[in-house]
């Protein structure tokens, strides 16, 4: 009887309700995997040690916190997600879930992940996790994303916090090494997203998001990508200079940064958005390889 009432009164809401997979999609699993990877790197590189169980709980909290921020982002951006081809099949614009479900899910996970981090690990890591979620939701999603082409430059800080949280989980504070890892992701984010927005600018324009190619044109975007790729080279070597990483990492970082720069130069030189998808793909590989090199170097050094 109650189910019949739901069917009769649900209106535009989905009758069956969201599936488990829809809740998983809200967490942005692909973004979460990169967040977890960089957070683990922060934990491995930090001086000191953390009980393996607490380390696993810290990683879980960071993953869930990142997912929570993604869910709240999808709740707020449901109107523009419906306009863009890339995001139109997400649970909210596709009508498989109500906005309230998404917001409630995100809020519960955000509070839960920060609380467990504070109870299980330490308050510094919990405070940084709370700051990351708040920064992504309020500063990036609500404030900057629809207002300025610098949205991902400043908003990129949210994605740069995870290694710092991992570091703080081990040490209880934020050292120079953590800041170096933060700076690496912070400088990497703009060329990564601008490469994507070069060949997706139509989508962003239709949704009214002032991405750099939409506002300033592809020529200026390519110039900015090149500039950031140039700056990324010295920033990627800072971990070696500070002693957080060794010479092997330094060699890998120099080689990968040189390729990044060469691809950015090709994008700048060629017409239209030729080369941009390749640069976008390489940028993901770049971050993965650099952090993998740091982790591998530390693990090998520890084993010897």
């Amino acid at each position, binding site marked *: 009887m109650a189910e019949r009432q739901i*069917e009769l009164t649900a209106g535009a809401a989905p009758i069956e309700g969201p599936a488990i997979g829809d809740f998983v999609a809200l967490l942005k699993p692909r973004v979460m995997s990169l967040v977890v990877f960089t957070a683990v790197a922060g934990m491995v590189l930090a001086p000191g040690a953390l009980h393996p169980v607490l380390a696993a709980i810290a990683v879980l909290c960071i993953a869930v916190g990142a997912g929570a921020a993604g869910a709240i982002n999808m709740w707020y951006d449901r109107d523009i997600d419906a306009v863009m081809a890339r995001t139109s099949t997400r649970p909210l614009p596709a009508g498989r879930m109500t906005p309230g479900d998404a917001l409630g899910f995100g809020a519960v996970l955000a509070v839960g992940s920060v609380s*467990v981090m504070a109870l299980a690990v330490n308050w510094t890591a919990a405070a940084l996790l709370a700051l990351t979620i708040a920064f992504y939701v309020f500063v990036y999603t609500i404030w900057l994303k629809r207002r300025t082409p610098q949205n991902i430059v400043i908003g990129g800080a949210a994605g740069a916090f995870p290694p710092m949280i991992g570091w703080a989980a081990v040490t209880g504070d934020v050292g120079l090494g953590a800041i170096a890892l933060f700076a690496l992701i912070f400088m990497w984010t703009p060329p990564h997203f601008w490469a994507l927005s070069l060949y997706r600018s139509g989508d962003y324009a239709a949704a009214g998001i002032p991405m750099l190619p939409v506002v300033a044109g592809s020529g200026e975007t390519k110039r900015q990508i090149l500039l950031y790729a140039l700056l990324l080279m010295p920033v990627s070597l800072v971990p070696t200079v500070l002693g957080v990483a060794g010479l092997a990492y330094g060699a890998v970082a120099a080689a990968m940064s040189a390729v990044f720069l060469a691809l950015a130069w090709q994008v700048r030189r060629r017409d239209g958005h030729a080369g941009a998808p390749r640069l976008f793909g390489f940028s993901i590989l770049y971050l993965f390889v650099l952090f993998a090199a740091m982790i591998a170097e530390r693990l090998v050094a520890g084993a010897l």
Partner: protein
Amino acid sequence: MPRLSELHKRRRVRNFALLTVLLGLVALFFVMSMVRMGGW
């Protein structure tokens, strides 16, 4: 009533998922407490 049956099935899956999450949280807090108290 195939519609209702589908609704029941989905609800059952969601309820089991919620039960799993709650049991997971109980286990998490137990393990966390043991480690923090130096038991493990």
